[in-house]
């Protein structure tokens, strides 16, 4: 072999592929290995797994089936497959992590790591009561635990499980299977207190007792009693009672295995758990944690699906950190809805199962004959399912979970959703199978089936169901259904903007903000692929506009704008445009009305009073737009931004100035706010209203932010809208003075702009916000994220840099050329046909034409 020419004089560390060390080979640790192998070429790195148990990863979720006959093979990993993939396995318990030197010890080996992952899971909590270490006491976590229980059961007649939660009941089932007289003891006054309410616990208890298992709730165990030989003989309770048993299984909750992390100096939660951020990184460089040992956003997930999710995210970020992939990922929490079969009893709990939402209502059905209990938690208006419980019969779990996740308004009385099928008849038809796309007549079931068959984005859904290919108005619903269905299937939901940018809108917003890009070309070159498209271009255009407030028709921004923004007017079905000057708060002078009327007459425009308290002038040809605006601006008007994803109108009522009920001046406030937020570009349009008293004539509660006057000050409501899925805005704060109100709205809007998805109205954004309204209140009113100064500065910048776009367009020498109809001729558009109706002109309908044009389907539009 030829020698390298320039041998360095000092020996370098041998070039080796980076080493990733995974502590723990449980369900999640194993998934992480698989994800690493799947996400990159596995010769580019070296994986070492440290495995404390005597066998490689197995399916802990189905642990109890180990007692089935024949016992199934629960193995998830095999030595052969690890070897084949070049994964090195070291059996033993890891210790001695040195995060500065990047080493870890196991047995008496010291191993260097480039990335380290804690996947150490959790251990069963054993309450500190006398006798708990005696022979005959067990926990229920590993296959070894089960082997020991099986051996002990050979010489035992009765067993008791301490803990009536999910795992405790599973353990009780196992003891019964082993032929023991079985009891369950629970400290709380009911079974499964974490998931069920009292009535649900009662139903479950009856069913379990009917199986011959003794249930003792509301019992505090004070001691494990021992016989003369020091072996378990039973339990003694705080209330003086006793229970005989030869064998005790503790199942009183789990605790994260964070001892090694603590010794290593990693940050832990107050009540344990290794603190991780959204990228699954711990407080030490290149050290990650996943699964039940990890504490994310104050939460430990005792379920495997969120752990799998973390494994996927951590793998992506580890590879990214090692320079082996360019796509980082984030973990943003998980839904805790669950459906299980315990001791043959089906139990389901989803959404807000315990009814903690303020003002919520419930409908329940407790059926002692069938042994079932069903409860629905409904929104205050009774129109939406927020969550629920099902005990004994979970046949409708999926439908109800869908209803809760999608927030679809109910079309049937809620009680019909939980009554059992009529004898001999079919179940009462429950339309969770709602019509999604009215253009193509596609229902939810068809969409879900397509997702089940592998469709993973809107494009795929469009091509296999046809939904969304008509007017496009249903695309947001389609998107929502896709997200909730994927979440239900336990899959990570890709929120990538489009095929050109592997980022969510929020991620892209942050990249653009932090790196300070000011032009599309730079953003595309640094983070995108191809030439972009009609999705990412306007999204980036909107982000740049939100951040820098520059004139949107500058040459570097112009190619990003949808036609509405490109011509600062709304395109109509025949290709002409509408013109809508701003009328702040809906207040307009007689002279203003006359001026608008004159413009309309001069240019032959159709006039209509809009639903937003202003006047729409329709049918303008593109090449007339500059002249129309020159006249409007001369009369004191400015752009109303009816074309942009930006602030539309702030509706007002006449308020205390005129109305005999008004308690504050709603009109003045609406005008001030409209002038403050005019021109603010946002992920979707923004609407607002201000009412002078609780009679709410301005319909403030159907707005993205609405303000209602009270004697004590202004009440602020957020997250409402009309449109496709109407939502009432929720009360964020009461009795505010104008300065506080304004600052609160500033921050609300800026936080929304930074974190919402593309085309996500505030209501959908708020619903998706983990922690909901309380969290929002924390962020913008108590500064829980330390963001407020930043948000305030961003809004001040917007207010300071506002300019009327139409005035800017008229001052721009490029404008006349841009608005010409033809690049090579001065003629006007040849293809337009008009009909006179009720004294005005409107576009001709197809049947009115000889050449056979038919009308285009009109509805919202997905832009």
């Amino acid at each position, binding site marked *: 072999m030829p020698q390298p020419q320039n041998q360095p004089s000092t020996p370098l560390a041998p070039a080796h592929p980076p080493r990733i060390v995974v502590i723990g080979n449980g369900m999640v640790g194993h998934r992480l290995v698989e994800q690493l192998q799947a996400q990159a070429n596995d010769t580019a790195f070296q994986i070492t797994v440290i495995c404390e148990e005597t066998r490689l990863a197995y399916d802990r979720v189905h642990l109890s089936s180990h007692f089935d006959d024949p016992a199934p093979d629960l193995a998830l990993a095999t030595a052969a497959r690890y070897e084949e993939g070049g994964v090195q396995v070291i059996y033993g318990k890891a210790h001695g992590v040195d995060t500065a030197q990047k080493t870890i010890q196991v047995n008496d080996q010291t191993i260097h790591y480039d990335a380290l992952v804690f996947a150490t899971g959790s251990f069963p909590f054993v309450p500190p009561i006398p006798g708990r270490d005696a022979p005959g006491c067990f926990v229920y976590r590993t296959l070894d635990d089960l082997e020991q229980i099986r051996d002990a059961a050979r010489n035992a007649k009765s067993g008791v499980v301490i803990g009536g939660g999910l795992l405790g009941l599973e353990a009780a089932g196992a003891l019964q299977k082993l032929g023991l007289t079985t009891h369950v003891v629970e400290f709380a006054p009911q079974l499964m207190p974490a998931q069920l309410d009292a009535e649900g616990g009662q139903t479950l208890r009856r069913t379990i007792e009917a199986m011959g298992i003794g249930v003792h709730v509301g019992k505090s165990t004070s001691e494990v009693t021992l016989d003369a030989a020091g072996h378990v003989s039973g339990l003694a309770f705080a209330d003086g009672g006793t229970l005989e048993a030869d064998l005790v299984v503790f199942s009183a909750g789990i605790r994260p295995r964070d001892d090694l992390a603590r010794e290593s100096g990693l940050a832990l939660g107050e009540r344990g758990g290794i603190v991780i951020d959204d990228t699954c990184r711990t407080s030490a460089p290149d050290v990650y944690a996943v699964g039940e040992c990890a504490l994310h956003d104050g939460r430990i997930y005792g379920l495997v699906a969120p752990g799998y999710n973390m494994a996927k995210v951590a793998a992506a970020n580890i590879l990214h950190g090692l320079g082996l992939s360019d796509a980082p990922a984030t973990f943003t929490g998980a839904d805790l809805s669950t459906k299980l079969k315990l001791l043959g009893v089906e139990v389901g709990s989803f959404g807000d199962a315990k009814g903690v939402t303020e003002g919520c209502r419930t409908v329940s059905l407790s059926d002692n004959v069938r042994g079932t209990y069903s409860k629905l938690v409904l929104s205050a208006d009774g129109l939406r399912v927020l969550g629920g419980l099902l005990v004994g019969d979970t046949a409708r779990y999926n439908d109800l979970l869908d209803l809760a996740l999608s927030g679809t308004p109910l079309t049937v009385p809620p009680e019909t959703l939980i009554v059992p099928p009529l004898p001999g008849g079919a179940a009462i038809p429950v339309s969770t199978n709602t019509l999604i796309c009215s253009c193509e007549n596609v229902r939810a079931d068809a969409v879900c089936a397509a997702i089940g068959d592998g469709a993973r984005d809107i494009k795929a859904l469009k091509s296999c169901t046809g939904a969304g290919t008509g007017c496009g108005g249903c695309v947001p619903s389609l998107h929502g259904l896709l997200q909730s269905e994927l979440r239900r299937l336990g899959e990570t939901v890709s929120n990538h903007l489009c095929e050109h940018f592997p980022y969510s809108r929020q991620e892209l917003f942050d990249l653009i903000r932090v790196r300070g890009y000011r032009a599309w070309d730079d953003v595309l070159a640094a983070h995108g692929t191809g030439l972009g498209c009609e999705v990412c271009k306007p999204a980036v255009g909107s982000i740049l506009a939100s951040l820098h407030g520059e004139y949107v028709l500058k040459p570097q921004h112009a190619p990003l704008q*949808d036609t509405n923004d490109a011509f600062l007017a709304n395109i109509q079905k025949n290709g002409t445009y509408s013109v809508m000057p701003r009328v702040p708060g809906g207040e307009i002078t007689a002279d203003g009305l006359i001026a608008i009327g004159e413009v309309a007459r001069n240019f032959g425009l159709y006039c209509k009073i809009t639903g937003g308290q202003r006047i729409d002038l329709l049918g303008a040809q593109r090449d007339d737009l500059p002249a129309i605006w020159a006249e409007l601006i001369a009369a004191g008007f400015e752009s109303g931004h009816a074309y942009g994803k930006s602030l539309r109108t702030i509706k007002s009522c006449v308020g205390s100035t005129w109305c005999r009920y008004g308690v504050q001046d709603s009109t003045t406030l609406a005008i001030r706010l409209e002038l403050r937020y005019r021109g603010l570009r946002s992920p979707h349009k923004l609407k607002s209203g201000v009412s002078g008293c609780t009679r709410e004539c301005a319909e403030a509660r159907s707005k993205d932010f609405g303000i209602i006057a009270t004697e004590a000050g202004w009440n602020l409501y957020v997250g409402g809208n009309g449109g496709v899925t109407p939502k009432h805005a929720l009360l964020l704060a009461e009795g505010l003075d104008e300065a506080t109100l304004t600052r609160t709205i500033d921050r609300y809007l800026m936080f929304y702009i930074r974190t919402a998805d593309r085309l996500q109205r505030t209501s959908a954004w708020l619903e998706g916000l983990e922690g909901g309204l309380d969290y929002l209140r924390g962020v913008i009113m108590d500064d829980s994220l330390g963001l407020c100064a930043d948000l305030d500065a961003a809004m001040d910048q917007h207010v300071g840099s506002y300019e009327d776009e139409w005035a800017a367009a008229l001052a721009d020498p490029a404008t006349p050329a841009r608005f010409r109809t033809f690049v090579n001729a001065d003629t006007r558009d040849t293809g337009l046909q008009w009909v006179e109706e009720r004294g005005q002109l409107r576009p001709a309908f197809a049947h009115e034409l000889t050449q056979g044009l038919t009308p285009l389907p009109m509805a919202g539009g997905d832009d």
Partner: protein
Amino acid sequence: MTLNLNTLPNPPLPSWQRICALADILPGLGVCALVGGRQIAVFHVAGQVYAVGNRDPFTGADVISRGLTGSYLKDSQERPKVASPLLKHAFDLETGQALDHADMTLPTYPARVEGGEVWIGLVD
């Protein structure tokens, strides 16, 4: 069902005709040219010019030149496209083929740049 609303007759075009200066079309954007009574959308995308019919066959409106341009992946190749501003139907800029509807197309015309001028050619 989607109706093909592109019902205009196709009169023969004159041979190569100068449309405008390349500088008149901002990169990434399109303009509309009137050629022999026919509206033709001309785009300047990634250094190339493309000419297609201006009428959106899905809606019957003359709007294609006002669409957003971009690219899409086909057989792992980036191809140029334009999305109609009305209902966002997308078309391949080179072939005129609608991306989600096999039976819908835009007419296409040869286009070239010579000495900084954009020319459109005759079809037949």
